[in-house]
């Protein structure tokens, strides 16, 4: 009965347009419109929003993007450095040439230029002068130590000039080596592989981000790893906010003993080294994505529960809730129709702020080798894999690290901007 009357009332209101003193129609300013207007003025937040949108788009489109497979292993393409201009085949050939000429140069098959010879002779001469000490026991004769020192100097200069000769290609390869190179060249040109029912010339690929220790494309792995990380962050963030909302709302609304018990549990969990427990859990029960969600969600709803509870308590005593109660609305109705919608602002803000935290926690576990396992990847597991060989293969570390850092920055700026937009008084809070 009362709902019918309500409807009539609202229809009546829409018929009567609200006007200001100049008889201009007044537009309602909803919380969201207001927040969006404030957010638009925040340049960093908008930049963050654009970056996040771009990342989400790439993550969503990962299956149809023109990138190679993230799990296909090319054993001949192991640890190729990133390159825009060269194909994998060209890089393989170059690597082979350097390998062969270095060996040949050690073998003495170097075409010495006049400059080389002059420099080598000059160095030997200098060393001889430096080490020949006229006052030493042997007089003009060189002692054994002095001879060794001179020989060392000679070897050093020869090695240095040899490296230059290798770089400049002044090394004679014998027939056998030339044939080996030629065979490789032919193989690279002709070799094809059947992938997904299509013949692919694998050596004509270009690896913009290089390859990893199994010859997998780092660009594909960074994109797919990003998809995994963002998905985990999103699902985890939403789960933890929903859990926090549920317990926070109950504690705040019901109050009394229920509130006390829930908040005591929250307090105890706060003081526990929960990341430690999560690490143990993952190490003991094996790596499963589901378990990781469960473990991380269980420990990350606490802050949200506290905030929601505070908000609910302040809303509970507001006049419109009192009005609803006096009209006979049930508790469930008050919670879900009146209180929860009014906490949506906080929920949006906290979900945005939770996502990077979740991504970081997942990456932390994956870095330790306890999170995502092969062939899947996340930014954390890629970084973790790369640390061992980062002196020789820095690209494996830097691309995922940069991709992840940019996303985390964007999420944080967006989250901070949203918080300021929904709650302008929080400007200086942390």
């Amino acid at each position, binding site marked *: 009965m009362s709902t019918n009357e309500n409807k009539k009332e609202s229809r009546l209101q829409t018929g009567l347009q609200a006007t200001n003193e100049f008889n201009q129609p007044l537009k309602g300013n909803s919380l969201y419109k207001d927040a969006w207007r404030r957010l638009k003025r925040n340049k960093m937040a908008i930049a963050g929003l654009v970056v996040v949108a771009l990342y989400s788009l790439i993550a969503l489109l990962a299956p149809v993007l023109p990138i190679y497979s993230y799990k296909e292993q090319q054993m001949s393409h192991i640890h190729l450095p990133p390159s825009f201009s060269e194909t994998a085949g060209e890089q393989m050939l170059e690597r082979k040439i350097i390998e062969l000429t270095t060996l040949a140069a050690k073998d003495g098959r170097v075409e010495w230029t006049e400059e080389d010879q002059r420099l080598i002779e000059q160095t030997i001469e200098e060393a001889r002068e430096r080490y020949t000490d006229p006052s030493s026991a042997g007089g003009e004769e060189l002692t054994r130590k002095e001879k060794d020192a001179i020989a060392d100097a000679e070897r050093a200069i020869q090695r240095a000039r040899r490296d230059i000769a290798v770089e400049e290609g002044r090394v004679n390869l014998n027939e056998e080596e030339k044939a080996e190179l030629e065979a490789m060249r032919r193989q690279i040109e002709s070799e094809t592989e059947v992938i997904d029912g299509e013949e692919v010339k694998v050596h004509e690929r270009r690896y913009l981000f290089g390859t990893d220790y199994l010859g997998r494309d780092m660009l594909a792995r960074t994109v797919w790893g990003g998809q995994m990380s963002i998905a985990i962050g999103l699902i985890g963030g939403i789960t933890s906010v929903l859990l926090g909302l549920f317990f926070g709302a109950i504690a705040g609304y019901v109050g009394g003993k229920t509130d006390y018990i829930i908040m005591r549990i929250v307090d105890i969990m706060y003081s526990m080294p929960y990341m430690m427990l999560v690490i143990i859990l993952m190490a003991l029960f094996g790596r499963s994505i589901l378990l990781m969600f469960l473990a991380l969600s269980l420990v990350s709803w606490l802050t949200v529960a506290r905030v929601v509870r505070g908000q609910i308590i302040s809303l509970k005593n507001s006049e419109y809730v009192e009005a609803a109660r006096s009209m006979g609305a049930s508790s469930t109705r008050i919670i879900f129709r009146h209180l929860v919608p009014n906490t949506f602002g906080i929920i949006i803000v906290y979900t945005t702020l939770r996502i990077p935290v979740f991504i970081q926690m997942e990456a932390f576990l994956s870095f330790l080798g306890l999170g995502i396992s092969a062939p899947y990847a996340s930014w954390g597991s890629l970084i*973790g894999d790369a640390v061992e060989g980062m002196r020789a293969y820095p690209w494996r570390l830097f691309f995922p690290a940069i991709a992840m850092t940019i996303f985390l920055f964007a999420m944080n700026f967006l989250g901070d901007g949203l918080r300021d937009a929904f709650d302008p008084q929080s400007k200086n809070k942390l």
Partner: protein
Amino acid sequence: MTKYIIRRLIGLIPTLFIVVTISFFLIRIAPGGPFDAERRPPEQVMKNIEAKFNLNAPLHMQYLRYMGDIVRGDLGPSFRYQDHDVNFYIANSLPNSLLLGFVALGLALIVGVNAGILSALNQNSWIDYLAMAIAIIGITVPLFVIGPVLMYFFALRWDLLPTSGWITGRYGWITILMPAITLSMQPFATIARLSRASMLEMLRSDFIRTAQSKGLRDSVIIRRHVLKGSLLPVVSYVGPAFASIVTGSVVVEQIFRVPGLGRFFVQSALNRDYTLIMGTVIVYSVILVLMNFIVDIIYSFLDPRITYK
């Protein structure tokens, strides 16, 4: 006051009890045991091993016996490393972890508070912007990115610092620099932002205006009135900061090969070394809980508004 401290200390016991109990049963119900090997030894040998480590008793008896042991301070023999017991390994590695942790905490506090104060006093100057930019990096970039990147540039690329090693090694004290900086970045950032925000709030408050109108010099006002109040939030953050340092040390010790407790932590869990996992969990929990307790006590000393009942 003493009563309050004692009551708080007793209040710590349930938390520790819960942590120990949860971990004990988690570890036992996990699949796989410490002596699972590719080739199973003869039945009798297994029985002897299980009897030696008290694994043949019913689970609740094992639990009671273990609780009895740890109350007496005995963490038991390691299941994996036969040479020594868990107490020995922890006694050897804990000092290194603690040293690293406290250096990182000290660094974060000193640099963070000073950066926050300077930023607040020179609001919107280049100092402010620089400090806050570094703080945003510290909050956003995870330490397992900061650590390897520092190592790549300072150790591998520019050859300024040793890649790894520890104080007792041949490079000496300089080895603590990179792990400590990596660990301190996140707490530093939060402390800098906290102290800046609370300092700004304090500068705008009424009693500061009163002090100014009395004609006190700025330096006196800041030292005597502003600083004291604005450092309170920082003190209450020291507990969480230490928790983040302890958690982070697991990763940092692995990156920089620090011979600390974090090294045992993941490995022992993977090895199903029941007693060593329990030992590390207990030590970590005690440290964290004690740290929170100490911070709370200090806080209640500093803030006259808090009364202890």
